[in-house]
């Protein structure tokens, strides 16, 4: 079970996480992209952190605001994708003061569907979706197995990390890395790495 306060803690932790890992994400993006993913994520999540002193009706309202903020501060491919993710997460959580594991599952699923709709990536395209898809599955399985929010998120984060590592041999078919053709193989996808960080941050804070 998670509350608005937990979500606040999550988004604050997320900004710190992205700042801490910015150079690393940019380094990944240098290899098969344009060397800005870490800067983009750090800028956007810092803008979100600046929203956290205001008060919100519920987690849904905060997540919506966070999504809009990401859309208007990140730019690039990741801005609309992560922005849409948070905007869509808000739907299933509207009006809920207590977020149960199943609620969060529905929110995550809605968010990831948003990413898919925007980006049209499929599994194996070497994008953030390759971290999201197994994470969703692992989350649901954990919930079915009776795990709480924290446990389910830990399972999701672990699956995301595996998905991220699985992008390494892939040849990209979406996003900027796809221009590299075969040369994109042998590198982790930066977006899959930031997705993993996002879920690890959630597991730490929404427990």
């Amino acid at each position: 079970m998670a509350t608005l306060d937990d979500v606040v803690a999550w988004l604050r932790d997320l900004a710190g996480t992205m700042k801490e890992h910015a150079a690393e994400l940019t380094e990944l993006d240098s290899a098969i992209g344009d060397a800005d993913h870490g800067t983009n994520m750090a800028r956007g999540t810092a803008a979100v952190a600046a929203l956290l002193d205001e008060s919100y009706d519920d987690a849904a309202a905060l997540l919506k605001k966070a999504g809009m903020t990401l859309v208007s501060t990140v730019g690039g491919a990741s801005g609309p994708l992560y922005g849409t993710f948070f905007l869509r997460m808000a739907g299933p959580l509207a009006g809920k003061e207590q977020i149960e594991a199943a609620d969060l599952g529905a929110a995550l699923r809605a968010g990831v569907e948003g990413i898919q709709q925007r980006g049209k990536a499929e599994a194996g395209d070497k994008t953030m979706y390759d971290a999201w898809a197994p994470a969703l599955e692992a989350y649901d399985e954990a919930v079915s197995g009776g795990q709480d929010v924290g446990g389910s998120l830990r399972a999701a984060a672990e699956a995301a990390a595996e998905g991220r590592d699985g992008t390494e041999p892939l040849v990209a078919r979406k996003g900027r890395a796809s221009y590299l053709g075969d040369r994109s193989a042998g590198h982790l996808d930066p977006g899959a790495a930031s997705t993993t960080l996002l879920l690890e941050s959630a597991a730490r804070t929404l427990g």
Partner: protein
Amino acid sequence: MWDMKKLINDPEDVVVEALRGMAAAHPDHLRVDLEKKVIYRKDAPVRGKVGLVSGGGSGHEPMHGGFVGLGMLDAACAGEVFTSPVPDQMMAATTAVDGGAGVLHIVKNYTGDVMNFEMAAEMADADSGIQVRTVVTNDDVAVKDSLYTAGRRGVGVTVLLEKIVGAAAEQGRPLEEIADLATKVNESGRSMGLALTSCTVPSAGKPTFELGDDEFELGIGIHGEPGRERRPMASARELAQQLVEPILEDLPRKDGQPVLAFVNGMGGTPLIEQYLMFNEVQTILAKADIQVARSLVGNYITSLEMAGLSVTLLTLDDDLIGLWDAPVNTPGLRWGA
């Protein structure tokens, strides 16, 4: 403390400080919204004229901000370096330049640019009812298997399109016609680029990739990303061949149709080498019996300080030639005015 060879203060402030400089240097041409990072034509909105909005990551100067003015763009949205701008910027620009005849969004085909402009067009439509049409440029022949990629990138043709469509808008042509013309220009042009060096994104602080002294990247985009292939360095003659051949293979053109030949420096290649390369390109085209009716040589769509060059060929007809020759008055491209 300073170990980056860049004339900047804080990497975070590069874009806004450069915009300040643009505003100060071109007070007669431009009005700059520093908060939204949008560069406007001084007299926008122009009543009854279709508004032209483009934008993209910064670091490609003079594109797009340098192409704002009479006969070209009405507004350009500046993103962070190599990062597409955000929907807020495009919506602000769209609203500000609409002179009642609708607005064309000129978008280079990169996932980020396309998605952000898409969101902006959705929102503009919902919010304001302004008619928005979009053209996505994708002229880069380096990207071949467009089924297995994000599709061909938008590169050099974007500059030519902004000029040609800008002239048509200035004539008062309606939005549908403008959008069709934009599509036609995009479909009539092809580009290919190479890099001799990488470039350094200010916030990253070091070159995006490393390249040996005896090799170059063929088939690059404009974001300092590595190209399709690394090849051994060769003479200007051979390099020109490697750029022009794949373009000609793919360029829609009937016998006898003239072309516009555009040799573009990526930012760090001296003009003397660009002219030398233009000579090679012109020689190849002459051998293929292709008349170069118009040309452009210089740094127009760049990747920061990258050394390199792209070639764009655009098949011309009388309408396009007339529109190319029409007056233009922007910081980056100017004639007849």
